[in-house]
């Protein structure tokens, strides 16, 4: 057991516990973005930043990757932490303002505007999809490519990966794209399943406990006639 103090409260945690887990155990909220239960800690977004050490010698670390240490003093909401967290949120807003997740986080931390050049990126390189693909879906179809400002997520050589099973988990966990089924625009659909008349959920009637993570995808509810959908029917389904 390790004893540490978080915001003045003494906590006893198992060896190997991260600061994030310890703080959550005590009920201190720490905002996260790239962290996800079931995926390995990554520390990409820095939103879970906390201050460790005595005043005057303290430093900022990411709570999701920092292991609890004996006698460690942690502050999860000091003024230094809060101002840094706001700055991170401003930077995230500057790159991906369209993300509902980031908007909500910014609002919750009273970040009303950002002071940087506005961009409209579709990726914040949090690595959720990459870890999801590797660790939960055992596929390793997508990964990081390049470095620096050219870093991006995608398949090798930008061709469809042979190990991709079109599970869609990468989209499901993405905090930015929040893609839903785009069957009305077949050229943009990741699977194109429904548009190509072979929706991934075509076997749904064979399973009583069939669940779909792409909620609401409604691909399986589309009524087909002669293999074609009229534009009106598509609109009906979407609405």
């Amino acid at each position: 057991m390790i004893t540490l103090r978080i915001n003045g409260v003494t906590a006893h945690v198992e060896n190997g516990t991260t600061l994030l887990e310890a703080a959550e155990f005590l009920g201190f909220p720490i905002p996260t973005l790239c962290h996800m239960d079931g995926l390995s800690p990554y520390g990409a977004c820095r939103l879970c930043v906390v201050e460790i050490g005595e005043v005057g010698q303290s430093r900022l670390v990411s709570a999701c990757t920092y292991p609890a240490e004996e006698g460690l003093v942690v502050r999860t909401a000091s003024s230094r932490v809060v101002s840094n967290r706001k700055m991170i949120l401003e930077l995230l807003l500057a790159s991906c303002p369209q993300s509902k997740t980031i908007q909500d986080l910014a609002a919750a931390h009273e970040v009303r505007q950002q002071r940087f050049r506005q961009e409209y990126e579709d990726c914040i390189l949090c690595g959720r999809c990459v870890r999801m693909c590797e660790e939960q879906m055992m596929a390793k179809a997508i990964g990081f490519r390049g470095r620096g400002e050219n870093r991006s997520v995608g398949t090798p050589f930008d061709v469809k990966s042979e190990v991709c099973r079109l599970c869609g988990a990468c989209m499901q966990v993405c905090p930015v794209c929040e893609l839903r089924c785009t069957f009305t625009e077949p050229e943009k659909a990741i699977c194109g399943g429904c548009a190509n008349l072979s929706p991934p959920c075509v076997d749904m009637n064979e399973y009583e406990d069939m669940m779909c993570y792409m909620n609401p995808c409604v691909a399986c509810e589309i009524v087909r006639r002669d293999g074609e959908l009229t534009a009106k029917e598509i609109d009906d389904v979407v609405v």
Partner: protein
Amino acid sequence: MKTRINPEDVFRIVDKHNNSQGAIISILEDVQATYNYLPEAALRIVASRTSHSLVDLFGVATFYRSFSLEPRGKHIASVCMGTACHVRGSRQVLKSFEDNLRVKAGGTSTDGEFSLSTVNCVGACALGPVAVVDGDYYRNVKDGDVSGILDRASRIDGALKMTDDERVFAVSVSCPSCNRSLLNDEHLLDGHPMIRVTASFGRKHGWIRLSSLYGDYRIQSEYAIPKGVVVHFFCPRCHAELRSGRLCPDCDAPTILLLVRGGGTIQLCSRSGCKQHFLDLGG
């Protein structure tokens, strides 16, 4: 420009590194040394043969600037754009390279001879502006020097290939009697001094120069030596005959003995055309 990939070659590279987890960069380096770039087919073979996924390999290959997924030119020219080189005018040097090669930085000239790239520091800031062409560093480069640098790189064509092949390395040899070096700095082959000894066969007696690259059988001789003739070799300094007392197992000709600097001996068959040799670095 499509490179044909022989899977056996890639297998050999992978097997050489024992499929260890940390060997991913070494494997990619060897693949690139073989094909001059990282062909997609080769990466797929490496992924199928190792525990690394294609995603990991692609991530490493795109992360490091030294790896290229595009075919590169025969010669690689890099211009340092680090701070020190920049303030000393590396922008003009780069422009001169671009004008001379008619290619932008990051590209390959249309004749496939030169690839031009920029690097952010080569660690020789006091010598700036620095350009690196085929591993040779050029200091205090001015834009007027560039055409000369490129000419020189084109002239020593082939030298790059010899040095890339790690089976070929230069041996420094000396006479077993007087222990003086047999290398002749005035005659270079691929940038390496040649081994100069005196050769005698029939009634002819003159100099002969051997390539000092191990595995390279090129020779230069004062007299043309007919194939199959046994030649006697002598040290040009002390005139002692370079004999080992051992016979060539292939053709029963006497072998000649040379000392390798740093320890060891090398024995070569004295019969013209026979490539039998022993390298003993243990003794």
